[in-house]
Each structure stands twice: as structure tokens, then as C-alpha cells.
């Protein structure tokens, strides 16, 4: 196990503070989660900011299926889910939220999707776990925990809202299962 329920709670609370520290103008901040675990974390960050600062920042979610560049490797069309971004991202500091940062391809796709909604003043990235092995020049601004992994390892994030418990586990694998 990499993170337990308390670790996840502390990480989110810390990142919520860091986000506001970095961009003090709360009226400019928006939180956007990447489906299907990042949107859960994004909602928790929004709640944490609300209780810390007594201010509600806009919350959205992105489904990046249409923007992925690794579909050839999956070989079939995954079902696309609806994105929900009902505020203008123009001139906002958008904090993208995902559970695990790995190759960076998901984030690249999310940024492509995001700019189709407008022109944010800045895009920042918050992740619960950074496991390394980037294939694109992308880094996170806010990290819950940096974890050294092998490329073949599997990092699984469980969140109460979808999985019934908060936990991050590392499953060591010698080879990737096809």
C-alpha cells in the first residue's frame, strides 16, 4: 500500500492550500477533474477550498476519450462519457486534476480538450500520485506523493465515492499483462 485513507485526506487538504497559495485570486480559479477518478478528487479539492477559504470555485469534469492518442493500442472504441464544463474557462486559472501522473499522455489529451472550451489564463496540474516515466514534457504543479515505480508496475487508486474505500496501492509486475 502506498497511501492509506488518512494520507489521501492530508494530501488533498495540503494541495487545496497550495492551489490558493499559488494563485491568490480565488475568483480566477477553476477546478477540472479528468474522468473517472480525477473528477472525484476535483470535487474533494473544491470542498476543501470551500471550507478553508469560504469561497466556492467552479468545478468541471472532462472525458478525454476522444482526444487520446493511444487508441491504437487498445484496439477498440471505448465508450465516451459526457464532459461537464458549464462555466467559461476564458481567463481562468484552470487546475486539472488526475489520480496518477504517468506517461503524461492523458494530460496532453486533457489540455487539448480544455482549449476547445476557451483560452484559460493558465493551466496547472494536480495529481494524487506521480509515478514517473514521462513520455512527454509535462510536470505536475501539485503532487500528493512522488512514487518511484518500474514502468511495468501498476498503481491503483481507490476512492470511496467509486470504490468504497480510500487507498492507493502499488502492484509490482515484471511484465505488462496484455
Amino acid at each position, binding site marked *: 500500500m502506498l497511501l492509506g485513507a488518512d494520507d489521501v485526506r492530508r494530501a488533498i487538504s495540503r494541495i487545496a492550500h497550495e492551489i490558493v497559495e499559488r494563485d491568490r485570486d480565488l475568483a480566477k480559479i477553476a477546478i477540472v477533474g479528468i474522468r473517472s477518478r480525477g473528477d472525484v478528487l476535483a470535487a474533494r479539492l473544491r470542498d476543501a477550498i470551500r471550507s478553508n477559504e469560504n469561497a466556492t470555485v467552479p468545478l468541471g469534469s472532462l*472525458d478525454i*476519450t*476522444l*482526444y487520446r492518442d493511444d*487508441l*491504437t493500442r*487498445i*484496439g*477498440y*472504441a471505448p*465508450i*465516451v*462519457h*459526457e*464532459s*461537464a464544463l458549464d462555466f467559461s474557462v476564458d481567463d481562468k486559472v484552470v487546475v486539472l486534476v488526475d489520480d496518477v501522473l504517468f506517461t503524461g499522455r492523458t494530460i496532453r489529451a486533457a489540455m*487539448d*480538450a480544455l*482549449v*476547445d*472550451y*476557451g483560452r484559460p489564463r493558465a493551466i496547472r496540474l494536480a495529481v494524487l500520485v506521480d509515478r514517473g516515466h514521462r513520455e512527454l514534457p509535462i510536470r505536475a504543479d501539485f503532487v500528493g506523493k512522488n512514487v518511484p515505480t518500474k514502468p511495468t508496475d501498476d498503481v491503483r487508486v481507490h476512492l470511496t465515492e467509486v470504490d468504497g474505500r480510500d487507498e492507493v496501492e502499488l502492484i509490482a509486475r515484471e511484465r505488462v499483462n496484455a
Partner: protein
Amino acid sequence: MRWSRRHVLDTDDWSKEEIEAVLDTTGAMVEVLSRPVRRAPPLRGRTVVLFFAESSTRTRVSFELAARTLSADVVNISASGSSVEKGESLYDTVRTLQALGGDVVVMRHSSSGAPYFVSERTDAAVINAGDGWHAHPTQGLLDAYTLRGALGDLAKKRIVIVGDVTHSRVARSDINTLVPLGATITLSGPPTLMPSAWRCGQAPPGTTYEPDLDRALDGADGVIALRLQKERQEGGLLPSLREYTRVWGLTEARVSRMRPGAPVMHPGPMNEGVEIDAAVAHGTRSLVERQVTNGVAVRMALLYLLVGTPTLEAS
């Protein structure tokens, strides 16, 4: 659910899960269409050939918008002004399409079954955009999506389809799509325009025939009016258009026999004053324009599911 179909020829053998997968994907496409930049990249570098051997503006434009929104290249081949008019056979046209290398062939043809013929002779994915009296699967799916948006879950909902059912590929595809989703269908219209087995107690599962439109509409959850082809009168199947309108036309008084707010739909183009009154066509119950908008999203969903990703063999 994992999508596994290569073509969309008819929905008559689709499972409820497959239909729902398309409708759920359609919801995501509606959202894409609402963005400031109405474009997403999954069909980048792909070519969609629109082969319309029977005239159609709306369906063709709808497919073209759908393909372009997903970043595909679009090539149009219509019957008039092409080699089809010069006497080229369907087989030769298919060979040409194959040699041009399109990834998807969207086709409309006046012969029932023509898309099957093409799908067996090309590597492209084939989408049937209407073939003869047989099927118009994207219309059935967009009607299901539109009804689901208005009524929620379609289980136990009763939908009336009124008009020339015999010659209607829309009616067949609506039945094939709505019945698996749990709806029941009441068919209405002149007996001369109803398949004889269907009006003699052998209607397809989930459907019944009720020649009296007023009785069909009583308490219904929605109605779909079919377009009346004016040549049916010349064929002797109708005494006169006026009589058709009097007995089977949708008027304000008739549609108010349905549940309050029950929607009215029409695949277009409408003969206002024949199968539907202008007041009904543009009234508060009318979902006709919503059908057009949803049509683009449904077609995007199918294009994405068929070729949004290269197959493993191709890559």
C-alpha cells in the same frame, strides 16, 4: 460493453445494450456540439465517403457535419452528375470506392439491401443511410435518443407511429430500436398502407395495429408521423390526400388526446397540412427540430464507434 460491429446496416438484430451504448455515446457528442469549438479529433486522417444514390439533403448534410466535427475528411458522391447516371453498375461504383480507400461509406440507395451488397465487397465500414423500404437505422436511433430525452426511460411507454407504414424504412427502424428499449408501439394509418400480415394480427413483437387514429392516440406517450409520399395516391392506395388528412392527419385536437405534453415527432421533410397540421408541427409538443440536432450527434456516435480507432489488424 465493448463495441464489436463493423457496419451499421440494420438495427433489427441489435441488443438493448448495443442500442444503449450508441445512445449514451450520443449524449457525449451532444456535449461536444455545445462547446465553443465544435470539433474533436478522433477521426483525424480518416475519410468518410458519402454515397447518396437517392436524393437527400438533410441526412447527407447531417452525416457531413457529424464527420467534419470529428475531424474526418469528407467526399461526396451523388447519383446525379456522377458515373451512376452514366450507367455505372453498383458493383463498379463499389470497386471504385474501394480503390479510393475511404474508411467509411455512408450510403443511401433506393434498392432495399444495397448496403449489404456493398459491405460484402469493400474493406470500409458501411453505414446505411436509408435503403428502399428496408431500414434507416440512424433515424431509428435518433428518434430513440430524442424520445428518451423527452420521456426518460422508455420502458412501458406507448408510442404511436402513424402513416404509410408499408413503404416506410423509418417505421421499421423505429420499431427495431424502440421495442428493445421497452416501448410498445401502436401502428396506425390506412389499411392499404399497412403490411397485410401486420394488419391481420401478425404485427411484429411489441407492436399492434389500430386503424382508428383517435383510439390509438388516447393516453399515448408520444407520436411519430410518417411522411406521406404523394405518389401513393397516384398508385391507387389512397382515394385523396384530403381524405388522408381528415382521417389520419395530426391536428391539435387529435394530439391533445395523448398524455399532457406528450411529444410529436416527424422524420422530415414534412408535408404540412397533409400528415401534420402546421400548428402541431411548430407547436409546443413538437420535437422536430430537436430530432435534426440530435441526428448529427447520433451519426457522430456511430462514426466514432465504427472507426474512431483503428482495429488491431489495421494498426
